[in-house]
Structure formats: C-alpha cells, structure tokens
C-alpha cells in the first residue's frame, strides 16, 4: 500500500493515458453521434495532460512499483519526447488528410495509438528485465495491429504478417537470452545486474554473458530496425498506412534506443574514475560498432535505388538508426547526450518528411518519386518544406538535423576508433545523394504533362509550417535544449 502511494505521483503520465484510452474505447463502443470527434478530442486531451506529468516524473531518481520501473530525468526526457511524437501525429496526420485511412474506424485508431504510447513510456522507464520484455512486447503487439489497420488491403496485410512473424521470433530469441541472464545473475533487476557485472563475472561466465548480449540484441535490433534485424522495416513501412509508418519510424524507435541505453549502460557498464567503461568481462562496444556500421551502410546503399517514397524513407530511417547507435557506442555522457539530441531532431525532420509524403498522396494518389517532377510549380510551399526536411535529414547546418549529427560525431571522435567516424562520415555523404535526388526531382525536373496546382487545406499548411519551424527554430534556443539533454543525463550518470 505504501509502495503504491509512493509510486503513483511519479506515474501520472501513464495513468492519464490509460484513462484516456478507456474513455476512447467506451465512447467508440457507445455508437453515439459525433463520437469520432470526441475520440480525437479525448486523445489530444490525454496526451496534453501526460506531457507535463511526464516532465515532472524526472524530478526524482527513484525506483517505483517495487523496482519494476524507474522515475528519473532520463525517463522524463523520453516520456516528453514520446508523448510529443504521439501528439504531433494525432494533430498533423488526421483522417481528413490521409486517403488511406478514409472510411475506417476512428476510435480504434486512437485507442491503439494511446496503447502504443503507454507501452512506449513503460519501455523507456523499465528497470527490470521482466518489465523490459513485457513493455517491448506490448509496444510490438499494438504496433502489429496498427500496421494491419487497412483491413482489406493486401499490402497492409502482408506488411503486418511479416512484422508479426519477424517480431515474435526476434523478441522470442531475446527472451531466451534474458532467461539465461536471470540464470547467470539470479536477479531480474537492472541495478542488481549492474552490481553483479561490476563485481566481476567469473571466467566461465563470460562466454555466457557474451552470448546473452548477442541474443538480447535480437530484440533491441528489431525495435530499432538495425541490421541484421531490419528486414521487416522496408516492407512494413511501405505496406502500413502512412500516418502509422510515420509514427513507427519515430516513437517505438526512440523507446527502443531508451531501453538499449538503459540495458547496455545500466546493466553491462561500470563507471570508473571519471569515465564510463564497458564491464571488463564483455566487450559489447565492438559488437554494437559492427551493428552500427552495417546498419548505416546497408540503409544508405539500399536507399539509393528506391523510387517508392515510403520505402526510401524506410531505408533512410534504418541508416539513421546506425547514426543513433553511435551515441550509445561512444559510451560517454557526450555520446548519450548526442543520442538524445539526435532523437529530438529526428522527431521533427522525419515526421515532417512523412507529412509531406502523406499530403502528396492525399492529393495525387501516389507514393512514387517518378510522379514528383514539377512539384515546385504545382505546390511551391510543400516543395520548399520537403527540401528543408531533407536538408535536415542530411545534416546540413543550421537545421536541427545537423546538431544531432554534430553531437554524435563529436562523441565518437572523442572516444571511439577513428575509422568508425570516417565510415560514418562517408555514409552521411552517401545519404546526401539520395536526399538530393528527391529535391532535384521536385525542384528541377519538369513534369511530362501539365497538371493543375495542388490546393492545400489551411490546417495542413499550418502543420507543415510548424514542422518546418521545428527544424529551423531549435537552433535559436539551443542552450535550453542542450541543457535539457544534459540535465536528463546528470542523475543517470551518477548512478
């Protein structure tokens, strides 16, 4: 009872979202008139309420719910980021501007979105490998349904089938690794695991620990879409409805990186004199460097030849997962801060790019890059906005994407092997090619036949503008954002 009373104040965001979820389900089931608008309003209200509650959960650094979850500044950062991602999605991507979702149930969609958001928050704050697995599966299962949302659509069905089979196997392999970890350490709590590893694993246990790191990486790799667990990603992104794709490319990936950070920093690293170090028993840093290099290279090379915009952005998001992993691999506070800054930037640039793709599909009915020529005449605003999102994804100053790349590269140059930074830089150059190709198609190429101008709805115009500002403005408030990321790590680093 005492534990519940102590935990509840730090659990506000999840509670508000749960209440909103139940209300949405009830309202939708009631069959009343105007329930679609009410469901949307409830979702927006719930997310708006969860935003400050998530932020204040970081005032302490304490285990809650008997050590199942942790309330700390790092968790608060991710809670704000994840709730903001859902909020932006609900507001900017609506049933009105997505012709794919047209005619389908509204309430179920919002209920699923809230369910994924709750489980994302739980995943980002997990402090026990049992909770880690439960939250990871909860994110996955609800995402499977979201991908399958276009019921009669063959592509959506195929995408969800590949997603569910791939996800179930990956998380199953991870669970096997976690069960071995429990056997080795005799505990499921992540802080207790850190104590176990810091005390020095006997020689005969080191091979087992390495195997465990490999097995668990299957689950983390699946959630963050890293090689060699990325195969689902292009198919799922192409088959799912674009708003779902936009959401999956940002929120579950961010939550996946949160738990990757907590697991590899929290359980498998020790903090020596002034600097972090991987626990001397197991060199997971080399393992993650290999994954990161393979991920960014494969993502970028495969993206070069794509013509379907959703598929292209899927490979681009795989490549970004490789860059994001640099922040974990650096194994320093600067690296972790780079990861947070990169995720913040990624939220605005990737959602913005997907919003433009959604709007063009809504008006033109196409995801094919070959239908994009002449866009600068027909819809100059969208063309310029897309160019800004792509430049941000490329990492061109002064856009926010540049800051993300700057921080992770700086962290790697400071700590990591030089060749790794060089490979990443070459990859960033390769990525610039296919982003520039989209811009060239939209801005320079002329359409084969003259087609009428696209008229944007006022709300769509406003939301594209907001995402553009989200890419341009953060630089003017940079010390505040940087300070936020730094303080999110302060307490975590002291643990």
């Amino acid at each position, binding site marked *: 009872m005492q534990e519940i009373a102590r935990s509840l104040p730090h659990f506000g965001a999840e509670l508000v979202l749960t209440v909103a979820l139940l209300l949405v389900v009830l309202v939708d089931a009631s069959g009343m008139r105007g329930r679609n608008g009410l469901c949307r309003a409830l979702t927006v209200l719930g997310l708006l309420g969860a935003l400050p509650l998530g932020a204040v959960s970081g005032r302490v650094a304490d285990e809650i719910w008997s050590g199942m979850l942790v309330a700390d500044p790092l968790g608060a950062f991710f809670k704000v980021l994840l709730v903001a991602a859902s909020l932006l999605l609900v507001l900017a991507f609506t049933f009105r501007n997505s012709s794919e979702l047209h005619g389908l149930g509204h309430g179920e969609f919002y209920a699923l979105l809230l369910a994924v958001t709750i489980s994302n928050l739980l995943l980002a704050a997990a402090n026990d*490998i*049992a909770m880690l*697995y*439960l939250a990871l*599966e909860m994110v*996955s*299962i609800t995402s*499977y*349904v979201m991908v*399958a949302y276009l*019921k*009669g659509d*063959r*592509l959506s*069905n*195929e*995408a*969800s*089938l*590949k997603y*569910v*089979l791939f996800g*179930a*196997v990956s998380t*199953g*392999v991870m*669970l*096997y690794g*976690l*069960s*071995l970890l*429990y*056997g080795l350490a*005799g*505990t*499921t709590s992540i802080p207790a695991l850190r104590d176990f590893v810091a005390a020095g694993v006997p020689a005969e246990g080191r091979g087992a620990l390495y195997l465990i790191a490999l097995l668990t990486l299957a689950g983390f790799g699946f959630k963050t879409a890293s090689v060699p667990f990325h195969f689902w990603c*292009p*198919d799922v992104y*192409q*088959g799912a409805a674009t708003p779902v794709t936009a959401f999956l490319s940002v929120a579950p990936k961010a939550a996946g990186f949160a738990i990757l950070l907590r697991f590899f920093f929290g359980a498998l690293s020790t903090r020596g004199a002034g600097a972090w170090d991987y626990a001397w028993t197991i060199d997971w840093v080399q393992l993650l460097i290999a994954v990161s290099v393979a991920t960014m290279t494969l993502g970028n090379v495969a993206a070069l030849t*794509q013509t*379907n915009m959703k*598929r292209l952005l899927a490979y681009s998001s795989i490549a970004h997962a490789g860059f994001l992993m640099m922040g974990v691999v650096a194994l320093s506070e600067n690296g972790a801060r780079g990861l947070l800054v990169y995720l913040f930037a990624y939220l605005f640039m990737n959602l913005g790019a997907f919003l433009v793709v959604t709007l063009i599909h809504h008006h033109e009915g196409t995801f094919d890059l070959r239908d994009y020529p002449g866009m600068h005449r027909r819809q100059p605003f969208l063309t310029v906005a897309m160019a800004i999102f792509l430049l941000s994804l490329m990492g061109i100053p002064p856009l926010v994407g540049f800051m993300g790349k700057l921080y992770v590269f700086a962290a790697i140059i400071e700590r990591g092997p030089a060749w790794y930074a060089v490979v990443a830089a070459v990859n960033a150059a390769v990525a610039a090619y296919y982003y520039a190709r989209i811009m060239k198609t939209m801005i320079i190429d002329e359409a084969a036949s003259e087609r009428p101008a696209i008229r944007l709805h006022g709300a769509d115009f406003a939301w594209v503008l907001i995402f553009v500002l989200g890419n341009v403005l953060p630089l003017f408030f940079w010390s505040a954002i940087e300070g936020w990321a730094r303080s999110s790590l302060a307490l975590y680093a002291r643990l």
Partner: protein
Amino acid sequence: MIGLQHYLLVSAALFSLGILGVLTRRNAVNVLMGIELILNSANLNLVAFSRYGAGNLNGQLFAVFVIVIAAAEVAVALAIVLTLYRLRRTPNLDAADLLRG
C-alpha cells in the same frame, strides 16, 4: 536424479526446434507453433533457474507473464493470418510476395 542441466538441455533443444520450425515451415500457422516453442523454452529456463539456482521466485513470476504475452501475441498473429487467408485463400507464407526490393 534430475537436475538443472537436464532442464537446460531440454530447453535448448526446444529453442533449436523452434528456430528450425520458423526457418523451414511455409505454413504461417506452423511458423507460429515454432514461435511458441521458442517462448516456452525460455519459460522452462526461467522456472528451472528459479527452482535450482537463483533462490527467488522472480523467474516463475516472469514465466507467468510470458505465458500471458504469448497468448496475446498468438491472438494477434492468428487474426493477421486469418486475414491473409481471406485475401489470398491460402495460409502459405510464399503467397505474401507483393512487397520487395
């Protein structure tokens, strides 16, 4: 006398069979059965470690939750396979070949 190692051997065998099933079966329902084997091999590990090694009940508790998750996952997966069957009149995974490249 049956000890921890016997359980671990059985669970490793189950895990391998599950992976084998997932990799070789073409029928989606059979693949799901392979996934069940993987999850249950982990359950066996958890319970055996809890009984013989760790000296606490965390593992058994974990296993109970895994059973619940496995049920939820299979429910969703079967619904998706059912949709596959409705759309293509086959539970065969080879039929799902529209997305590639």
